[in-house]
């Protein structure tokens, strides 16, 4: 690990301002992803700004009837919150499907959104990776791509976003709140937060340098049957091959977002009009233009079947 200086920030605005002022600075929250990447030389911050003491660890009701989740709320506490379990069970389910108990105790709401991909070529500093070293190429294309993207990928990068939590938040139409180095704040709909790789896979979201996530807000509860189905290589403690976040209303309408298939949580609102026609129709619209590799073409079928399983379970839950 490269040496770095360290400070504990006292306010969100001071943290953002310090991040813009000190070259090579990064925020550290739970640290479960950042430290891992620092150990292998993928991340090499010169300065760490510890944002754990910023009093951003509460869950409060909003004036609109939703909830504001502080950026430092731990994944465990978010998943266990009685209001989340009752009104946004999809979010609890997604969080609990991710990582291990130890990691969820550390990982934060803000940090989870900023997780880097688990593409093995990104992790291996001997391999070409446009995300780690722009312009060096992509070893995943033509390599072992079983875990990689089937939609929204580019000739530069076929990595996927690893978060489960973000997939649920995408289905729930969450909003990301931030503070910028000049002290101004903004609200970013989660649909616009993560970006597709294009020619700049090293850019993964719309945050400006030094911009700090302070909270995620959830709109008022939408009810319905909420399910999170994660398909992976072992029953627990593994990243998704495919995951399906689904909300089905009593009238059969609903929402669906996918994890494990793209550089960001994948939702195509137009596909949701196909709910009455069933899983095949929904999956076809969701994955329109999909370009899987030989190694991950199975995901196209897996998405359809996981949607079918989710729709069936929702029907059963309603009955």
């Amino acid at each position: 690990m490269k040496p770095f200086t360290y400070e504990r920030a006292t306010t969100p605005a001071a943290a953002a301002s310090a991040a813009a002022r000190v070259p090579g600075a990064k925020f550290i929250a739970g640290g479960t992803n950042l430290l891992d990447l620092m150990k292998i030389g993928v991340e090499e911050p010169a300065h760490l700004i510890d944002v754990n003491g910023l009093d951003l660890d509460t869950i409060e009701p909003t004036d609109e009837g939703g909830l504001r989740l502080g950026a430092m709320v731990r994944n465990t506490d978010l998943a266990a919150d009685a209001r989340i379990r009752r009104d946004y069970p999809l979010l609890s389910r997604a969080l609990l499907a991710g990582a291990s108990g130890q990691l969820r105790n550390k990982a934060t709401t803000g940090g989870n959104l900023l997780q880097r991909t688990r593409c093995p070529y990104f992790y291996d500093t001997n391999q070409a990776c446009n995300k780690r070293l722009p312009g060096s190429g992509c070893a995943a294309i033509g390599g072992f791509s079983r875990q990689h993207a089937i939609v929204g990928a580019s000739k530069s990068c076929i990595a996927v976003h690893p978060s489960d939590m973000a997939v649920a938040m995408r289905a729930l139409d969450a909003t990301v709140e931030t503070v910028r180095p000049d002290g101004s704040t903004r609200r970013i709909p989660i649909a616009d937060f993560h970006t597709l790789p294009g020619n700049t896979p090293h850019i993964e979201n719309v945050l400006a340098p030094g911009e700090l996530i302070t909270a995620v807000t959830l709109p008022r509860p939408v009810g319905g049957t909420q399910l999170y189905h994660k398909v992976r290589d072992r029953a627990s403690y593994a990243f998704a091959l495919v995951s399906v976040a689904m909300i089905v209303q009593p009238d059969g309408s609903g929402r669906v977002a996918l994890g494990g298939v793209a550089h960001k949580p994948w939702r195509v609102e137009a596909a949701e009009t196909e709910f009455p026609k069933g899983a095949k129709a929904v999956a076809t619209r969701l994955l329109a233009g999909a370009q899987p590799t030989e190694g991950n073409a199975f995901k196209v079928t897996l998405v359809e079947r996981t949607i079918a399983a989710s729709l069936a379970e929702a029907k059963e839950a309603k009955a």
Partner: protein
Amino acid sequence: MDPSNDWKFTRREVLKMGAVSATALAVPGLVAATAAKDGIRSPVTAKVALEVNGRAQELDLDTRTTLLDALREHMHLTGTKKGCDHGQCGACTVIVDGRRINSCLTLAVMHEGAKVTTIEGLGTPARLHPMQAAFIKHDGYQCGYCTPGQICSAVAVLDEIRDDIPSHVTGDLTAKARINPIELRERMSGNICRCGAYSNIQEAIAEVAGVKA
């Protein structure tokens, strides 16, 4: 008494001797000197005060030091084990402010004022923690390397269920979390045992929890 003092040579000292002979061959001093001339960043130290197993500790550490390395290399609490050092195996699990975490994936300097419990703080050979006694009774290990992490994790798992924290296999999210074998298996999935003692680990935890394995 610290159990490691009972031995003339601990396993750790034998390992240290091996490490010394290995570094003599690699000549790391020369490499470091060359690197410094190229403008490589110099190490930075910072102070941190925390409480480990009820004892106040004040340390001046390289900021890069993980909590795991601080425990093992600076406080000489070698019960906590380094397995993968990447948060994938759980061997380094300790309890910080009542919550289990991977001590390899957190910096020591981030834990100012924290209360840390390691395997050495749970029990002693003379006064075993009930979870330690149950692991022995049910043979919940073979080589023993993952055991300190398994036991710290298991103790915290039972607290998490008591605190009504749900899991991936919890059927009804609005009902109170319950202790049963399926729950224990899921909640222990962050602790890998390559000897495969899982069924015995499960029996040990179930006994302490007072449920049928």
